[in-house]
């Protein structure tokens, strides 16, 4: 275990050093959600009415949840890109824990996005989002977002290793923007047609968005919502743990066996 942590920390350092050499991607990753907040909030927001609250206040937790779900995209792209680097084979010929490389990637992603949620939250506060539930609840919401991001980063890491092609991973990754569209991230799901509402409410992003809304704004989900949305905090934790339980072993095994 200590080997995994020691090697994982070294690999985490590797990813942070790479960000230091090429900060452009990082800046893009941080400004994207803010741009979307302004665009959705002011362009679509004028046409959308959410009962009981300002649309932009409804949107900020949704964007935070969507940002957390983006771990799939960035994890996939990074893993696919990394899988072609000759250095991967060097790691495999060294006495290094097999889990260290994927762990380093997802841990670095966690740190970078945790920091990246701050500008989104600050701009959110400036355009009308309010944290009414107190500091502890806000911290809890942040914790849930980070946990969910960690889980989606592992999903992405596995998919990236599976695809093993940078270009395909990039294209599939950009297709994941559709995931928050079929959830309660940008719109309330209550008025969707029956089957679509079921799909949207079982989308893990809905649980995350609803949890953040509940913790920060005391907004409660519809009484007849699906279980993960009706119990959003438990739903978010459950979704994250299920994804981690499935994808961590898959990603580690895929990494260890690539090229054999």
């Amino acid at each position: 275990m200590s080997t995994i942590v020691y090697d994982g920390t070294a690999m985490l350092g590797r990813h942070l050093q790479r960000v230091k050499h090429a900060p452009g991607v990082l800046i893009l990753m941080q400004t994207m959600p803010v741009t979307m907040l302004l665009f959705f909030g002011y362009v679509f927001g004028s046409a959308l009415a959410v009962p009981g609250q300002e649309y932009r206040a409804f949107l900020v937790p949704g964007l935070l949840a969507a940002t957390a779900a983006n771990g799939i995209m960035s994890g996939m792209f990074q893993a696919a890109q990394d899988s072609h680097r000759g250095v991967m084979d060097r790691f495999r010929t060294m006495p290094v824990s097999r889990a260290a490389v994927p762990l380093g990637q997802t841990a670095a992603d966690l740190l970078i996005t945790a920091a990246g949620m701050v500008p989104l939250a600050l701009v959110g506060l400036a355009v009308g989002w309010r944290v009414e539930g107190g500091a502890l609840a806000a911290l809890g919401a942040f914790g849930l977002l980070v946990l969910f991001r960690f889980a989606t980063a592992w999903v992405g890491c596995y998919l990236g290793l599976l695809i093993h092609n940078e270009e395909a991973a990039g294209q599939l990754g950009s297709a994941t923007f559709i995931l928050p569209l079929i959830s309660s991230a940008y719109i309330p799901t209550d008025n969707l047609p029956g089957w679509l509402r079921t799909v949207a409410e079982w989308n893990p992003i809905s649980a995350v968005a609803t949890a953040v809304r509940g913790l920060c704004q005391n907004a409660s989900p519809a009484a007849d919502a699906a279980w993960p949305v009706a119990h959003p905090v438990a739903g978010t934790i459950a979704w994250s743990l299920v994804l981690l339980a499935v994808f961590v072993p898959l990603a580690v095994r895929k990494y260890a066996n690539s090229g054999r």
Partner: protein
Amino acid sequence: MRYREHMTTTYAVLSDGLEKRFGDVHALRGLDLAVAEGTVCGILGPNGAGKTTAVRVLTTLTTPDSGTATVAGHDVRDAPGAVRRAIGVTGQSASVDGELSGRENLRLFARLLRIRGAAGPTRADELLERFELTDAADRPARTYSGGMRRRLDLAASLLTRPEVLFLDEPTTGLDPHSRNQIWNAVRDLADRGTTVLLTTQYLEEADRLADDIVLIDQGRAAVTGTPAELKARIGSYAEVVVADGSAMLPAAAVLDQLTGAEPVLDHERRTVGAVAADPSLTLPRIVRELDAAGVPVVDASLRPPTLDEVFLRLTGRNTPEERAA
């Protein structure tokens, strides 16, 4: 090394009947290798002969379909962790992170190799200095020239002193300066007792560095011997250019008589060539004999054979590239 008593020889690398298929490609077809501890073994062969697959199996990157292999006494299949602790790998298969600087790469590998405290950075700086990379140490490795990158690769394998060092085509495509640096480093390591297994397409490289050469063909060891033994078996290649086409047959007759080998005629280039197995045959003698026979010689040479010629001579077949062409 070859004359050591059999009982006392320990092998750093031993393989028996290694087989590996990738779909339709049968990369290894029963490869047997025995590399004595402290020696340099050169695996010589054209592209596609199975050199890289052999290295990948021995360095635990690929599992063989059948056959066994031990490296530094550890089975590659049953104890890959122990193998990894004993080896260094450089070349086609294992490289460095292009996004990190040379210094960052070496420090990362030092950490992963458990060189604790200040020893890691110090060792990294020593190696950067030794391979003339200090000036470029803080630039991302992707901005390095091919030679600089290969030197950094090798430096990364030398952070600790590995028991067995694998070099997969370490100098392919390199400038002479980088090539010499790598050759010196390999010789230096071998002198200090590290076992080196290197693959190469260059006869000259195997000749200069290796104690033993294994010529591999279609995933099998076709010929094994010291460079001197191999050269004695192959000989040199004599080639003469004649002034006009009518002189080719008389030239061929002279070469046939001198070398005892069947001459090869190229009518377009007006050349006649033959393998000269006898090391006492000299160029002046060839020219004198041709002149005595009244052959108008324009040019003549007696040179070491190329890999293609070695291959043709020892396996009776052309190299895969030649067959493709």
